[in-house]
C-alpha cells in the first residue's frame, strides 16, 4: 500500500513536473533575476548617476523642480532615491480639464544631488523580468492566471517530490558528479532538499500573493461583486480634504521626513505624494519604504496637512491574519534584504531554477536510454528535447540578447524599450527554430556557447558603449554596476563550462560506444545529456 502511494506520487511528480517544467523554469529564472531588479535597471539606464543618499536634500530639489514646472498640477508624486535605485523620480498629474476626468501624468527623472533633469535611455530594465515573472507577457489577467496555476503545480510537484524521495536524510549530503544519469538525479535531489525551505516558502507565498484572485469565495460571499468595498476595508485610506480653491504657499516638505520617521519608529520614506499642491487644503502623504520590514504592505502611509504640517492620519496596524499574509508576501519579494541576504536569495532562486532544469533533463534522459540502441527517437521525445533546449539554453541566450540590445539599439529609436523586449523574444523564438533544425546535443552546445560568448563579452560591450565600465565603477565603488558586469562575466564562464562539459560528454560517449556499435551521429544524439 505504501509503495503504491509512493509510486502514485512519483507518477504525479514526473508528469506535473514535465508539463509545467518549461514554464516554471522561465518563471524561476526571471524571478531570480528580479531580485536584482533595481540593480539591473541601474545598469540598463547608466545615465542616472548614483550618489550618497540624502533624502531630505533630494526631496527639497524635487519640490523646487515641481514648484517651477508643475505648480498647477493636482498631484505630485516624488519617488526618493535609495541604496539600490539611484533615481529621483517626479511625476505630476495635470488638473483635469473637466470634473470627473483623470488628468494626464508626466514623469521626469532628476539627478538626486543636483536636481538637474536627466534623460535616461528608454528601457524597461529589471522591471521586464519582474513583470514577466508573474504576467508572462500576456494580457491581464491571463498571464497571472497561468503563472498562478504553474505555482500550484509547483507546489504539487514539491510535495509529491518530497514523498517520492525515499532517503532525504540519508542522502542529504550526497552528490556524485561524473556518473551520468545518477549525477543528474543527485543534483536534482541536492538542490531540491538543501534549499527546500526556500522552495516551499516561495511557492506557498506566491499562492498567498494572488489569494484574492485565486480563492475569491469568501470575498464574494461578504462583499458580492463590490470589490472596491473589500479593498477599502482591507486598506483603509485617510480621507483627503477637497481642494479649497484658495492659493497658499506650500512649506518645505523635507522636515516631514523626520516626522514620518517618528511615526514608524525610525522607518524610512520611499514616496512623497502631494495632493493639491499650492492650495490651502494641500495634503502630503508619505509612504513607507518596503525595505524597512519583512512584511510587505501595500500603502503604509502617514498623511499631513500640507500647509500647517499637522498630522491627519496614519495607516493603522493590520490585524494578525493580514500580517501573516503580508509576511509571506514580503518574504517572497525580499525587499528588506541587504546585499548579503539578497545574494543568498539569488543563489536560492538559481538553485530552484537548477532543480527544475535538472528534473527536465532527467525525464528525457531516462526515456532516451530506452531508445539509444534503436537509434530512432520517437516524436514526443524529440519534442521534449527541443522544448528543453529552447526553454533553458534559449532563455538564457534571450536574456543576454536583452542586455545587448540595451547597449546597441540607438538611443533615439522610438519605442526603444519595446525593441529591447522584442529582441528578447526574437532571440528566444530563434532558439526554438535552431533547436528544431539541429541535432539535440549540437543545439545545446551551440546555444550555450553563443550565450556564453554574449555574457563574457558584455562587460567589454559596456566599456565600448558607455563610460561606466569596470575600470570606472570598481574605482568609484558603484557595486551595482560593477557587480552586474562581473556577474555576467561569471555567468558566461559557467555557460562556457557547461557547453564544454556537454561537448566532452558527447566525445566520451563516442569513445565508449565505438567498440560495440558503429557510432553514427544519430546514435550520439540519443545519449543522455
Amino acid at each position, binding site marked *: 500500500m505504501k509503495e503504491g502511494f509512493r509510486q502514485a506520487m512519483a507518477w504525479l511528480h514526473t508528469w506535473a513536473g514535465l508539463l509545467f517544467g518549461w514554464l516554471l523554469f522561465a518563471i524561476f529564472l526571471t524571478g531570480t533575476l528580479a531580485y536584482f531588479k533595481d540593480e539591473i535597471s541601474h545598469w540598463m539606464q547608466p545615465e542616472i548617476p548614483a550618489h550618497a543618499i540624502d533624502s531630505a536634500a533630494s526631496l527639497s530639489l524635487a519640490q523646487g523642480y515641481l514648484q517651477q514646472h508643475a505648480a498647477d498640477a493636482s498631484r505630485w508624486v516624488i519617488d526618493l532615491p535609495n541604496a539600490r535605485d539611484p533615481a529621483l523620480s517626479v511625476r505630476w498629474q495635470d488638473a483635469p480639464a473637466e470634473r470627473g476626468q483623470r488628468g494626464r501624468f508626466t514623469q521626469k527623472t532628476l539627478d538626486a544631488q543636483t536636481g538637474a533633469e536627466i534623460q535616461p535611455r528608454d528601457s524597461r530594465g529589471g522591471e521586464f523580468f519582474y513583470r514577466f515573472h508573474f504576467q508572462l507577457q500576456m494580457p491581464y489577467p491571463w498571464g497571472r492566471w497561468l503563472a498562478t496555476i504553474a505555482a500550484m503545480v509547483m507546489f504539487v510537484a514539491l510535495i509529491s517530490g518530497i514523498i517520492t524521495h525515499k532517503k532525504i536524510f540519508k542522502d542529504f549530503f550526497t552528490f556524485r558528479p561524473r556518473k551520468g544519469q545518477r549525477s543528474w538525479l543527485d543534483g536534482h535531489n541536492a538542490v531540491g532538499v538543501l534549499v527546500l525551505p526556500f522552495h516551499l516558502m516561495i511557492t506557498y507565498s506566491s499562492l498567498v500573493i494572488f489569494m484574492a484572485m485565486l480563492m475569491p469565495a469568501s470575498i464574494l460571499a461578504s462583499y458580492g461583486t463590490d470589490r472596491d468595498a473589500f479593498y477599502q476595508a482591507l486598506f483603509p485610506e485617510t480621507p483627503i480634504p477637497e481642494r479649497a480653491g484658495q492659493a497658499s504657499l506650500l512649506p518645505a516638505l523635507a522636515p516631514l521626513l523626520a516626522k514620518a520617521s517618528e511615526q514608524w519608529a525610525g522607518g524610512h520614506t520611499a514616496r512623497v505624494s502631494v495632493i493639491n499642491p499650492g492650495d490651502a487644503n494641500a495634503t502630503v502623504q508619505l509612504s513607507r519604504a518596503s525595505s524597512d520590514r519583512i512584511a510587505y504592505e501595500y500603502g503604509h502611509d502617514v498623511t499631513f496637512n500640507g500647509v500647517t504640517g499637522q498630522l491627519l492620519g496614519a495607516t493603522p496596524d493590520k490585524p494578525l491574519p493580514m500580517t501573516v499574509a503580508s509576511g509571506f508576501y514580503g*518574504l517572497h519579494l525580499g525587499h528588506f534584504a541587504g546585499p548579503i*541576504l539578497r545574494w543568498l536569495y539569488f543563489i536560492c532562486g538559481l538553485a530552484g531554477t537548477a532543480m527544475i532544469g535538472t528534473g527536465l533533463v532527467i525525464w528525457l534522459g531516462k526515456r532516451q536510454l530506452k531508445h539509444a540502441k534503436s537509434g530512432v527517437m520517437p516524436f514526443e521525445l524529440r519534442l521534449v528535447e527541443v522544448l528543453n533546449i529552447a526553454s533553458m539554453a534559449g532563455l538564457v541566450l534571450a536574456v543576454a540578447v536583452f542586455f545587448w540590445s540595451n547597449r546597441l539599439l540607438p538611443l533615439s529609436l522610438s519605442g526603444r524599450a519595446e525593441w529591447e523586449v522584442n529582441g528578447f523574444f526574437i532571440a528566444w523564438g530563434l532558439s526554438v527554430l535552431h533547436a528544431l533544425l539541429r541535432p539535440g546535443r549540437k543545439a545545446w552546445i551551440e546555444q550555450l556557447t553563443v550565450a556564453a560568448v554574449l555574457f563574457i563579452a558584455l562587460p567589454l560591450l559596456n566599456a565600448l558603449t558607455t563610460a561606466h565600465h569596470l575600470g570606472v565603477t570598481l574605482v568609484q565603488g558603484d557595486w551595482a554596476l560593477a557587480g552586474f558586469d562581473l556577474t555576467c562575466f561569471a555567468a558566461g564562464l559557467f555557460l562556457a563550462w557547461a557547453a564544454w562539459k556537454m561537448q566532452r560528454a558527447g566525445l566520451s560517449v563516442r569513445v565508449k560506444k565505438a567498440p560495440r556499435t558503429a557510432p553514427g551521429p544519430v546514435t550520439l544524439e540519443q545519449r543522455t545529456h
Partner: protein
Amino acid sequence: MLLALLLCYAGFTALCLSMPRHHDELLGHKPSARRARHLKLAGWLLLGASLWAAVAANGWSFGLVDWFAVLMGSALVLVLLMPYRPKLALLLAALSLLATPVAAWAQC
C-alpha cells in the same frame, strides 16, 4: 550574519562526518560509533548555536530569515564542494571554527 554562517558550515560538516559513508570519503576510514555520536552532537549544537547567533544579531524576524538563508547557503556550498575539492571543504570547516571567536567578538 557571518558568525551564523561560520557556525552553520561547521555544523553541517560535523553532521556530514557523522555519517560513515561521508567520513570514509573525506577522511579515508569509517568513524567509530562513539566518534560518530560525538560528531552528530557537535553538529546539532553548532547549528543550534548558529540560530542563536543569527537571532542575537538581528532580532527574531530578520534573524530567522537570515538563519534560514545561511543554513541553505552553507549546506549548498558544502555539498557542491565535497566531490570536487574535499580537502578544501574540510579546511573551510576548520577555518570556520577558528574564525568563530573573532566573528563572535565582532558581533558583540
